[in-house]
């Protein structure tokens, strides 16, 4: 049996050859990085966040390593939806890897305009990931995802504008993650990504000042894996739509744990900084695990720890 059959999953309206998807914000738009043949084992790639207008992102220090972790305060730097549609979309859609357009929730009017423009190109866009979880901006971002009511408002707006597959990326800073997840499911999301970075901070003891201009920043990387796994478990208990586990995955074992907790797919961010071929090595690991146990496919793994 071919490996891409064995690892195939259907996830929130997207057919993935492997459950391993590159998370938003770590991958360049340069053409070579979207060629399917160059990155075997990847099921899909999320784009960097897109907003209505160009954003310069945050001033000052943007990244800071912690023990087995990474704090970032990029602040949604991107060139705006027009540039994305004219320049990036043609490039990334040629490579053959399914991609998911990460749309950062700003305010109601701006984000609905972004989604309206994406809707005009729907035949070219496999899915949208609505990011109601960015911790690094003052306007919108994570503020939307903290409560069930505001999350529902954002998703309800998005659902009206964008008719294609809609993934919604939640924040670990949610007051009650199960409640938020249920509210987002009710508004018609096709899948939930659990989740974005965990709010943290660092202080530079030489200057006695916070490292980041915004003081707080988002923590990612292996240090957060157990936290993310627990949250995936909680959300999988709360909803019936597919969940995509994200946070600190650095091995095929972590992928298996996310899947066994109930996730249908896994997003990987920080680990791509360590190994560009993580998709390949994780997929081989998953495949060997399945073959060694005589399992037929992903359905035999997903949610197994819950049975």
């Amino acid at each position, binding site marked *: 049996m071919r490996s891409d059959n064995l690892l195939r999953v259907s996830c929130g309206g997207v057919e993935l050859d492997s459950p391993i998807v590159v998370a938003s914000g770590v991958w*360049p738009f340069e053409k070579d*990085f979207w060629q399917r043949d160059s990155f075997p084992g990847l099921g899909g790639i999320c784009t960097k966040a897109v907003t209505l207008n160009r954003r310069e992102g945050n001033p000052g220090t943007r990244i800071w390593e912690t023990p087995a972790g*990474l704090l*970032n305060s990029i602040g949604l730097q991107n060139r705006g939806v027009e540039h994305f549609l004219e320049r990036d979309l043609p490039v990334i859609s040629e490579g053959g890897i399914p991609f998911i357009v990460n749309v950062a929730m700003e305010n109601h009017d701006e984000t609905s305009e972004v989604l309206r423009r994406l809707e005009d190109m729907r035949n070219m866009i496999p899915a949208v990931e609505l990011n109601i979880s960015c911790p690094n901006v003052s306007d919108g971002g994570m503020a939307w995802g903290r409560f069930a009511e505001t999350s529902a408002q954002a998703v309800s707006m998005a659902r009206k504008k964008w008719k294609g597959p809609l993934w919604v990326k939640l924040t670990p800073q949610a007051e009650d993650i199960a409640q938020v997840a249920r509210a987002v499911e009710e508004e018609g999301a096709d899948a939930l990504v659990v989740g974005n970075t965990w709010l943290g901070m660092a202080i530079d003891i030489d200057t006695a000042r916070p490292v980041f201009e915004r003081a707080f920043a988002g923590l990612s990387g*292996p240090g957060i894996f157990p936290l993310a796994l627990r949250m995936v478990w909680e959300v999988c208990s709360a909803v019936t739509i597919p969940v995509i586990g994200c946070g600190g995955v650095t091995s095929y074992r972590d992928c298996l744990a996310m899947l066994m907790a109930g996730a249908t797919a896994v997003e990987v961010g920080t680990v791509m*900084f*360590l190994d560009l071929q993580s998709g390949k090595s994780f997929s081989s690991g998953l495949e060997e695990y399945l073959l060694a146990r005589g399992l037929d496919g992903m359905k035999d793994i997903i949610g197994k720890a819950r049975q």
Partner: protein
Amino acid sequence: MCISEGIRDFDGIAEKLQKITSRVFTIDFHCPEIAHGSSPGQFVMIRFKDRLDPLLGRPFAVASAKGDSFSVWFQVVGKMTALLSEVSPGEKFTVRGPLGNGFGEPSGDKLFLVAGTLGVAPLLKVYEEFSGRLDCEVHLGVPDKTWKPFTEQVRQLIPGLRIFSDDGSLGVHGTCLHGLPGEIGQREEIWACGPVGMLKALAERYPQNRSGIRVSLEARMACGIGGCQGCVIETVEGKRRVCVDGPVFSSEEVAWDEIR
């Protein structure tokens, strides 16, 4: 399987650690792809294979290449460099590269290569590449005479090296800018690497000649491939990524007023 212009994560094996001063070291890595495939001013990101702490690779200029190996020079400044200063031969690393634009081709027939301490690393490779066919005058600045073993080591590679020290205890009293001519000629260029304050001072010293100055900048990096936007600097065209749009910029591109 090539990715962007051959960028990949290669295996690198530490071959030789050399201690130059108590804080300055060089390491030779066996890594044929980088040894044969990088040009002056390009860099690599090096991380301990299979270790999650330190997590990310750190950027190092390719200082020289011989056979299937390349070398990096570094000063102990943090966790990663402290660990590297105790590395054992045979230890395995991941080497991402070759990264960045590099210095490119000289446009004239004389190069002033200007370095502040470890900023000499990328310029060693520039010298290796170009000193045979054009006039390369190398100026190296250090704080004081505790850096003598370092300057001696550089002198072995660059016989005509001019040395400057901040306190005058080694070479000529002054910074590495001290011995540069008042004006840069039509057929001359300055290529520089060092602390950002030094590079800014260089730009300010030649306000009319900024197109004749190329500077190699440093930044904290996570990906090295243009994905994370973590390494941006202010330029006259807005924020640009040091890892792929640089690390070498023309001095006239950099928005020096906004750089701290």
